[in-house]
C-alpha cells in the first residue's frame, strides 16, 4: 500500500472511544478490588495507590493476600513481578503488527497502559486494518487506566456490601472480561492462526490444572507462540 492510499491515523479521541469495552470490563473488577482491599484491612488511599502504581489486576489481588498475610516485602514484590512477566511479549507483538515505520517516541508513556485487554484491543484494531498511532494508543490506555483507578476508589469507598443485593448484576458484570476476550478472539480469528489458538488454549488448561493459574497463562502463551514457529 502506498502512503496516499493508507487510511488516516486514528486520533486520541478515537482511542478513548475504543477503550469503552475495556472501561466497562474494568469498572466492576476494579470495584471488586477496592472492596477486597478494604475487607483485607487496607485504607481507600492504599487501595488507590496499589491500582495507580501497580496497575495489573490479578497481581493486585495477590498483593492483598501477600501483604495481609505478612509475607516478606521482597518475596511479595518478586511474586508479583514474576506474575506479570508475560507483558514482555506484548510490546514486540504489537509493534510487529504496527509496522517498521511506526513511531515509538512517546512509548515511555503509552506503553505503561499495555495491559492484557489494551493489548488485545489494539491488536484486534490493527488486524482489522486500522493504522497504528501513538495518540490512539494513549487514548485507549488512558481510558482503561482511569477506569481501573476510579473503579478501585469507588469500591474502596462503597465498602463490602455494595453489590450484595444485586447478584444478577454482579454476575453480568463479572462476565464482561471473558466476553471481551472471546469477542477479541473472534475478531482476530483466521484459519492460519487456529493451531496457535488451539495449542494456547489446551496448554493453558493443562498448566492451570497441573500447576497454577499464573503458570497456565504464561505456559499457554509461550506454547501457542511456539506453535507459530511450525511452517505450514
Amino acid at each position, binding site marked *: 500500500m502506498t502512503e496516499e492510499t493508507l487510511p488516516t491515523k486514528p486520533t486520541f479521541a478515537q482511542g478513548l472511544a475504543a477503550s469503552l469495552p475495556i472501561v466497562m470490563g474494568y469498572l466492576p473488577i476494579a470495584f471488586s478490588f477496592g472492596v477486597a482491599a478494604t475487607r483485607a484491612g487496607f485504607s481507600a488511599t492504599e487501595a488507590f*495507590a496499589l491500582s495507580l502504581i501497580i496497575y495489573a489486576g490479578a*497481581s493486585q489481588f495477590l*498483593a492483598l493476600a501477600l501483604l495481609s498475610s505478612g509475607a516478606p516485602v521482597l518475596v511479595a514484590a518478586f511474586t508479583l513481578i514474576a506474575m506479570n512477566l508475560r507483558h514482555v511479549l506484548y510490546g514486540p507483538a*504489537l509493534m510487529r503488527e504496527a509496522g517498521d515505520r511506526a513511531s515509538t517516541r512517546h512509548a515511555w508513556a503509552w*506503553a505503561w497502559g499495555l495491559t492484557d485487554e489494551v493489548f488485545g484491543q489494539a491488536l484486534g484494531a490493527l488486524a482489522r486494518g486500522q493504522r497504528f498511532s501513538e495518540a490512539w494508543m494513549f487514548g485507549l490506555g488512558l481510558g482503561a487506566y482511569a477506569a481501573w483507578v476510579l473503579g478501585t476508589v469507588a469500591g474502596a469507598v462503597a465498602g463490602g456490601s455494595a453489590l450484595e443485593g444485586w447478584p444478577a448484576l454482579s454476575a453480568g458484570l463479572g462476565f464482561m472480561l471473558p466476553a471481551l476476550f472471546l469477542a477479541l478472539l473472534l475478531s482476530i480469528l483466521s484459519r492460519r492462526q487456529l493451531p496457535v489458538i488451539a495449542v494456547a*488454549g489446551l496448554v493453558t488448561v493443562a498448566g492451570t490444572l497441573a500447576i497454577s493459574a499464573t503458570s497456565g497463562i504464561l505456559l499457554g502463551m509461550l506454547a501457542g507462540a511456539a506453535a507459530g514457529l511450525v511452517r505450514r
Partner: protein
Amino acid sequence: MNWDLLTVAVLAGAANWAFRALPVITRSDRMAAGGWLERFLSATGPAAIATLFVAAILPALTPDVRALAPVIVGTLAVLGLYAARRSVVLAMLAGAVAHGLATWALG
C-alpha cells in the same frame, strides 16, 4: 500509608513499566525481522488472547448445570452477536447482559 505496601507497589509497578515499555522503546521486534523470532512474535498475539479467554472462563466452568447455564448462555450470546454484527463492543455487552439475565432467571 503502609510502607511495606508502598515498597511492594513501587517495585512491582517499576517492573510492569519495564516489561511493557522497554521492548517497545527498543523496538525489539526489529531484531527479529525475517527469522524464527518474527514467526514467534506474530503468533504471540493470538496465543495471548486465546490464553486470556481460557484463563477467564476456566474458573466459571463447573459440573453444576444450574451454575454453568449462565456461562453457556453468555458465550452463545457473544458468538451470535459477533456473527451477526461483527462488533466487539456489542458482542461483549450481549454476553454480559445474557449472562446476567440467565443468572436472574435461574434465581
